[in-house]
């Protein structure tokens, strides 16, 4: 991909100063990706153990919205669509968007394209806090969820993710700017610690709790319902709406922290904003769907290779791209071994790990 862009002859008739390539504006890329996402959503909503045809889907929606008064579909299909299929697809879109944009922005903050929330331990931190809340909940019989309602888990996971990100960021800064080694080692340490905690709980857990723990480890959208969709939506929306405003500052950060400061970026404020917004997405998606790795790594990488590293494009593209990838992955995970289903985390890790290794190899190769 790199070599392609290099060999392209310069187009001289363009206005001076305008990039000859990468002309694709954020608006158009957003629109095209948005249409693809819509197609994926419809595809995913139609496919499953009980398949719904496009015509039936149209009828179901038209009847609900009052466009027609005649119900020309099976009642059962409508129920499946409204109660099972649609919330699940919505959740996949939200979680995917949250993970995608979080991955892209964390990579900007760490100035490194391999900073993924799973690898550096952010996801683990989030799930640790969520699990702690579940344990406390058992002990104090729902006092906590009474106060926070559906948002309790999301908030706890969010706090866990934010604290972990801060820890990893500060540690990686100690070893100099963009310290990749420290960052990854931190991730290993945190993942090991959370692994130990999970092990401890597995050891002590009852059958019921064991199921929940497995759910955290593997990641699944199986628990989707409208409540979980509503629990995630505000967090992801915040992240997706406000993050693109930071794209200029994130671009400057590419030059290094001190250079960015010299160009007017307040690092302390930027750091806080990115960590809060990114971990909102990661935390809330961990709360409802467990550990889904590599989406935040693979999607930004594809967007970057296709449209360049400018963060405005990258953030918008990664949000929509993440939603597309996760919607498709979830469709596969619930159809490939139907009527049972494969936890989506297994799927993303299986596809993501080789991809991660490829990026590492590519990074080293390009330095030569």
């Amino acid at each position: 991909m790199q070599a392609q862009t290099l060999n392209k002859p310069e187009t001289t008739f363009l206005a001076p100063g305008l990039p000859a390539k990468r002309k694709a504006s954020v608006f158009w890329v957003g629109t095209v990706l948005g249409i693809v996402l819509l197609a994926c959503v419809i595809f995913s909503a139609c496919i499953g153990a009980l398949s719904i045809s496009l015509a039936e889907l149209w009828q179901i929606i038209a009847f609900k919205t009052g466009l027609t008064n005649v119900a020309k579909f099976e009642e059962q299909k409508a129920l499946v669509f409204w109660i099972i299929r649609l919330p699940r697809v919505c959740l996949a879109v939200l979680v995917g968007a949250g993970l995608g944009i979080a991955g892209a922005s964390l990579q900007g903050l760490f100035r490194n394209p391999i900073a993924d929330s799973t690898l550096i331990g952010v996801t683990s931190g989030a799930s640790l806090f969520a699990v702690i809340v579940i344990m406390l909940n058992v002990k104090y019989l729902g006092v906590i969820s009474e106060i926070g309602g559906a948002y309790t888990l999301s908030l706890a996971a969010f706090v866990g993710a934010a604290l972990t990100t801060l820890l990893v960021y500060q540690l990686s800064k100690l070893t100099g700017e963009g310290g990749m080694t420290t960052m990854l080692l931190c991730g290993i340490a945190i993942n090991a610690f959370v692994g130990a905690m999970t092990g401890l709980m597995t050891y002590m857990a009852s059958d019921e709790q064991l199921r929940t723990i497995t759910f955290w480890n593997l990641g699944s959208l199986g628990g989707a319902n409208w409540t979980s969709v509503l629990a995630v939506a505000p967090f992801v929306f915040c992240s997706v709406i406000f993050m693109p405003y930071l794209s200029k500052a994130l671009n400057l950060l590419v030059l290094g922290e001190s250079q960015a400061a010299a160009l007017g970026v307040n690092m302390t404020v930027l750091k806080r904003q990115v960590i809060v917004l990114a971990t909102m997405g990661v935390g809330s998606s961990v709360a409802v769907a467990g550990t889904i790795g590599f989406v935040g790594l693979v999607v930004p990488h594809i967007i970057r290779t296709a449209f360049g590293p400018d963060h405005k494009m990258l953030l918008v593209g990664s949000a929509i791209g993440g939603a597309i990838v996760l919607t498709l992955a979830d469709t596969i995970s619930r159809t490939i071994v139907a009527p049972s289903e494969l936890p989506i985390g297994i799927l993303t890790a299986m596809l993501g790990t080789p991809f991660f290794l490829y990026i590492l190899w590519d990074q080293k190769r390009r330095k030569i």
Partner: protein
Amino acid sequence: MIQVSNVHFGVKGRKLLSNVSFAAKPGEFWSIIGANGAGKSTLMKLLSREHSPTSGSITFHGKDLKKYKLKELAQRRAVLAQQNSITLAFTVLEIVLMGRYPFYDTQPTRRDLEIVDLCLKKVGISEFKNRLFPTLSGGEQQRVQVARTLAQIWEVKEGLILLDEPTTGMDLLHQYETFQLAKEMTEKGFAVVAVVHDLNLALQYADQVLMMKGGETFASGSAETVLTEENIKTAFGLTVRIIQPDHTHFPIIVPDTAPVQASV
């Protein structure tokens, strides 16, 4: 323009700078020289407000540097730091355009793009404006950074340019071109403060020289009065001779060392 008075700076009880004072006026080219670890880069970091002095003060246009907002500073002075590694595949044009970021909100204006174009031409890199930054050689990357710094300050009146070893990795021609450019900027009313390693370049281009040794000012003043054989001997520990060749307009500094004897 920028006035440094009795500045001290230390980290964890270790003194890095003590009692440094100088004042750069509009139109002056200040060159900071000294041996490794003399405190040159530390001084640059204080001037760019990356660090704040432990005691003493730095004023910029008569106002304490600490009282400026970062954005305000970004619109009046540009900094070229020593280390500039970029891993993401931005194009040269995109990097130089970053110099204009403090001046526009979401979309660069036509003027911003014109300035970028002009700065690319000034530094002689417009032919590879669409190449990816990480694929350039060290010297070429440094020239891109120079163009970026220039773009940031281009339209500013009485702006300040801080350069920390601006010619690192550049070939002979581009070293001279960069200094020529800096000199040109001072003629437009800018003040330039640069850390320079090549004493000949300092002697040829700098109006004023600040020679540092062990975190303190060793000598300060016009280039000819500071760059003397004795001063260089004490500050760098190397015996040099300053000679005036017949066909050049300026003296040159050459090391006065005995030829290496082949040891038997």
